């Protein structure tokens, strides 16, 4: 346990574990400090300056997302800070040409609405060089980007793919996949992690159904990814009108994956609505065709078949192949079935390859 320190927040006594980021310490005391470039998964960056607060003894306000609480610190969030925040928002809007390229939420425009901030003009050089990617999962629109660098830092600090770069300097700065290639030609695995941390929706899901549908109106259902034994927790985002999954998201506080997903968990949900997907048990009868049936009957047919093989050729004629999508408990049951019920040691899982 780290020791607790006392500090002053807007004139009130407060306490926090030593070294806690100011933004968190303030939040626990009910003071919400807006952030744009901060992400708990990433090292403090302090770039957007949206979170600056006054700290006694410092000649300038300090970023709450990168400043740690210390004993006796005197912090103010209500002096000249709100004015700065509004001006900084205006500045970001002055080069924010496309607030909604792909239907994802946009924290900047939300903040602008809260603060009643408007750009006094659009910068003459606001237009950035466009970028098109031939991959079918993720898109990116430079004109929506606020250069918070969250995506790039995610690729470097979390995913370690470094497939995105913060390119250039000054007015020419822009985010692009390595040397402006397609994501497909970089070290990208299309996990969508960079997308998930983007605060403005500049990086977005390409196949998102009904992009005009704002995310808030989607209904989230928390579930476990069925693709592999890691068991990532995720939210299926369902459009209540069509009852279809529109996209998959995950939250930083979910155990086991902390909001990270791989390409399968994030993007490979379209099988759910696929017309070829089997939703009822089927059995191949004598006519060679598949016929719908009940679970009871299907299991009986399978058991009969296994028993017949065992009777005719012995248990060693039977092998079990477990799917990589099974959990550890299910794998345990499979080998139990193989060893004690059927009596064979021939068990394999495709996860072994």
């Amino acid at each position, binding site marked *: 346990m780290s020791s607790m320190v006392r500090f002053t927040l807007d004139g009130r006594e407060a306490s926090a574990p030593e070294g806690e980021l100011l933004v968190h310490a303030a939040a626990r005391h009910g003071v919400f400090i807006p952030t744009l470039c901060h992400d708990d998964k990433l090292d403090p960056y302090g770039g*957007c*300056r*949206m979170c600056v607060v006054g700290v006694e003894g410092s000649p300038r306000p300090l970023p709450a997302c990168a400043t740690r609480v210390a004993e006796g610190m005197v912090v103010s969030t209500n002096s*000249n800070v709100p004015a700065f925040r509004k001006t900084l928002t205006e500045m970001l809007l002055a080069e924010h040409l496309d607030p909604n390229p792909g239907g994802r939420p946009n924290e900047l425009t939300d903040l602008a609405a809260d603060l009643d901030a408007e750009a006094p*003009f659009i*910068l003459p050089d606001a237009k950035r060089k466009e970028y098109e990617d031939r991959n079918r999962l993720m898109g990116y629109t430079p004109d929506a980007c606020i250069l918070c660098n969250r995506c790039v830092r995610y690729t*470097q600090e979390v995913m370690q793919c470094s497939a995105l770069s913060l390119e250039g*300097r000054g*007015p020419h700065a822009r985010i692009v996949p390595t040397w402006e290639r397609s994501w497909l030609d*970089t070290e990208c695995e299309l996990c969508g992690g960079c997308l998930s941390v983007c605060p403005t929706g500049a990086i977005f899901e390409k196949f998102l159904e009904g992009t005009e549908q704002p995310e808030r109106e989607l209904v989230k259902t928390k579930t476990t990814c069925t693709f592999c034994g890691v068991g990532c927790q995720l939210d299926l985002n369902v459009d209540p009108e069509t009852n279809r999954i529109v996209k998959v998201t995950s939250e930083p506080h979910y155990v086991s994956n902390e909001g990270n997903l791989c390409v399968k968990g994030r993007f490979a949900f379209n099988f759910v609505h696929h017309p070829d997907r089997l939703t009822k048990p089927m059995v191949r009868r004598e006519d060679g065709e598949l016929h719908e049936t009940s679970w009871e009957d299907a299991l009986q047919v399978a058991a009969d078949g296994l028993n017949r093989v065992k009777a005719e050729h012995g248990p060693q004629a039977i092998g079990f192949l477990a799917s990589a999508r099974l959990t550890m408990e299910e794998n345990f049951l499979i080998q139990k079935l193989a060893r004690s019920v059927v009596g064979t040691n021939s068990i394999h899982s495709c996860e072994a390859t």
Partner: protein
Amino acid sequence: MDNLGRIRREIGPVTPELSDALADHMNIRRGEVHEVVSFYSFLEVPADAVRVCIGPVCDCLGAKDLLAREQENANGVPVLGVECLGHCDIAPVLMRGDVVEPDVTRRTNTGSSLGLEQADQTLAEYEARGGLAVLRNLPAKEKIVEELKASGLTGYGGAGFPTGLKWEAVAKEPAPRYVVVNADEGEPGTIKDRYVMELRPHLMLEGTLIAMDFAEATEGFIYLREEYATARARLEQALEELRAAGVLDGRSLELVIGAGAYICGEETAMLESMEGRRGMPRLKPPFPSQVGYLGRPTLINNVETLAHIPAILRDGGEAWPRVRLWSVTGAVTAPGCYEAPLDVTPRQLIDDYAGGATEEIGAVVPGGAASGILPPAALDVPLTRESLREWNAGPGSAALQVFPASYSPLRLLAETMRFFAEESCQKCTPCRIGNRGMHHLVEELANGEAAMTREQAEEWLDAMAATSICGLGQGAPFPMRNAFTHWPELFEPLGEPAIK
């Protein structure tokens, strides 16, 4: 950085393929090399490209025409406009590859500290003038700090932090420590460090070695801007001589060459660059004296600051004459680099040192892009930190730029804001966007149009000054605010100033 610079010089401009090959060779991610390559202005430009300076002094002496002429006669060689090349004393100036045009001439004076009027060609010449005596007989640490404090020496890189305090702070941090010399001189109008390195390289190196001995640092680095080819050759020769004489035994002192990014002169951006990343400033605190190169305590000083150290320790801090080098350029008869007292006035520098003005003076800039823009009424103000504070300006890197009345203050302001916008590392919002916004505002004013109200402009400047990460964004509002005060008629389209 070193590898990228070598690729550019030995193979050619860094292409995506070369960048990938280097990444694979060094076993780092390709994207991370791409980020670094694209940050610097010159890595993707051939080594023989023509670079025409479009800094403010060159601009007022016809750089745009020169650039247009060069572009017309390019013959396939890339021609680019670049920010201040540090040769404003021979403006307008260009570099063809490593060669400066017109020919370099240096005008300086008999100083009482640095003795720049007489160049040292060799280590022997330097030693004959008493060189290395201080290094060979170094006083105790406490004594060094005491003398530095007594001398009143403050950093001459621009920020003006008391050198004695900085040295004392570094010595208190745990070893191992590093020493870094800031030789990235890029502040528009500033030519002084180049004079020191070209004329008395051994002197600066002695100051550096004193700093290394003091900090018990066995490794030191000199971060030199790429454009200073002559200074580089002089330093390499001087280092070779010192090595041969055994003076470097037991320690290493290396040159690190930049690649065209003004912001790398900011000390924490420099450290990032030295560590092979984009030169984007770090958040302070912690300061480099606590957490610097590779996370270790690091003493960073400017070239000129270090060059004064031998004289201070030789004669004693009290006796040291309290001088600095002034780069005097623009509309003067004898532009050059002159040693003069700290409280010299612009008029004295112009008349007594630089041979007088060539034209009626319209404005002066006291010390670099962010130091402010002052009207002729300020010509008799001593250029000290204290007296300039009343003018909401500062001596910065002591680069007095003299602009003729025929050069419009609005143009000067536009060029200055364009410079900040281009050279912003882009990391923080107020600097990346604020400077572009101010540049836009000034350009619009030149057409008689107002892009925002005066009140909004002041809000933007306040946010830039208060919330920018480093000195670039924090300092950029000074020239704008000075212009509001001294040339109010230029800003009439914006309406009334906010009542504070």
